[in-house]
């Protein structure tokens, strides 16, 4: 899955956001990965992720699920998907992961230059890169870019453009605040990498540009 690769949005916000995957390799280190993944999730919770999901539960942090339920569900082969905000946070997290040395593949989706800097500071040797070469085909059928910056936070396409427009309408008519709107937008994402904090920032900028045609 490359669902975290094609995140769109303003560069200043992309610079601050890092998607982190913990990914056991089927047939190579699945066996015994459960306790390792659990330790990593406990550490990630301490880091304060913007969102997190484990594949054994497929419900993100904003889906009325407790940390204990998330930890209890982890078994061999469980993958972890999370979003961390801030360069220092990702640097500290990677330093801890390096020290823990659990031996499970770690993947970061982020601005290449920022990850390069952090890797150099920590003495890490990144192995493989997956580059996005953009969208092709009938691109005029796409939702506009200001909506896509929300919907592409869930790379599986589970966050609907219509939902984003609906929460914008509800914020503008006073039914929701920015955080409530962002949690509603985050809820359908079943890969746990929709970042409600970035959503709040983007909504602040976007709201003045939209008008409401119904209450």
């Amino acid at each position, binding site marked *: *899955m*490359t*669902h*975290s*690769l*094609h995140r769109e949005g303003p*560069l200043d916000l*992309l610079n601050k956001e890092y998607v982190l995957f913990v*990914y*056991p390799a*089927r*047939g*190579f*280190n699945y*066996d015994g990965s459960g306790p390792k993944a659990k330790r990593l999730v406990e550490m990630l919770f301490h880091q304060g992720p913007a969102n997190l999901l484990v*594949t054994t539960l*497929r419900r993100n942090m904003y889906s009325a699920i407790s940390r204990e339920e998330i930890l209890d569900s982890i078994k061999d082969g469980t993958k972890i998907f999370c979003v961390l905000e801030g360069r220092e946070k990702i640097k500290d997290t990677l330093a801890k*992961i*390096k020290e823990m*040395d659990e*031996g*499970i*593949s*770690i993947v970061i*989706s*982020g*601005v*290449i230059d920022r990850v*390069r800097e952090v*890797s150099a500071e920590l003495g*890490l*040797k*990144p*192995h*493989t*890169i*997956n*580059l*996005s*070469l*953009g*969208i*092709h*085909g*009938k*691109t005029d*059928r*796409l939702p506009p870019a200001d909506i*896509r910056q929300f919907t*592409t936070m869930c790379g*599986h*396409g*589970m966050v*609907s*453009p*219509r*939902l984003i*427009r609906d929460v914008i309408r509800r914020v503008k008519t006073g039914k929701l605040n920015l955080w409530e709107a962002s949690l509603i937008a985050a809820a*359908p994402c*079943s890969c746990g990498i929709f970042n409600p904090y970035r959503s709040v920032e983007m909504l602040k900028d976007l709201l003045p540009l939209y008008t409401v045609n119904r209450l």
Partner: protein
Amino acid sequence: MLIRKDLCVGCGRCQPYCPVGAIHFEELKSVVDQEVCYECGTCLRAEVCPVEAIEESPYVYEYPRALRKFFSDPNATHALTGIAGRGTEESKTNDVINRVKPGEVGVAVEFGRPTLGMDLTNIQKVTRAMAKAGITEIEPENPFNDLIQNHDTGDLKPELMGEKVLSAIMEFKVKQDQLGHVLRTIKKAAREVDSVFVVDVYTRLEPGLAVPKEVISAVEAEGYTRRPNAKINMGLGRANKTVRRKA
């Protein structure tokens, strides 16, 4: 997906949740357009229906309709691979499995992304173009292989032509010197489809998180633009000792 007409109260709360706008009002009740619906299950998982009128269709797991579910619902497990989602690992575990080696480039064409989805007729236009260009070996662990009738021609199974998927990933690898030819073929095929796809390439890194210049040259020569954000395998994984001994 279906909405029970006898239960639906016409509140419309479910409608914004459908990624492709398949739910609309008919005679004051919400109805799912079965032709548009990708069976992704987002409307049901949203749990916003006050009367629990949304349910899976009785035929959602019947072939060939089941294709929609398996490729559109990231929570569904593919019958072939037993893996949820699109079922590919691509670059994510390359530090352990070493699938893409130095001098090689992995390529992925993610049909339907972002958000629009794509029908099999249009996917076949690309698979045929790729086969004509000599790309016939698709990543074997990828459930995309399930769709292909003839790898040499790129023809998909004919019974699937009426179906559509929110996303399906065609994944293969080539030598670095073939990358330009592949990217050129993809760009040409993009003109023929009536939806969208995203393209990505993955490669081993040189020291200092440097992308091999051969890859950059090929990408730029074919007129592609690299996004500033990427997915980076940090090189922290390793195989279990028992597996290494067997190898």
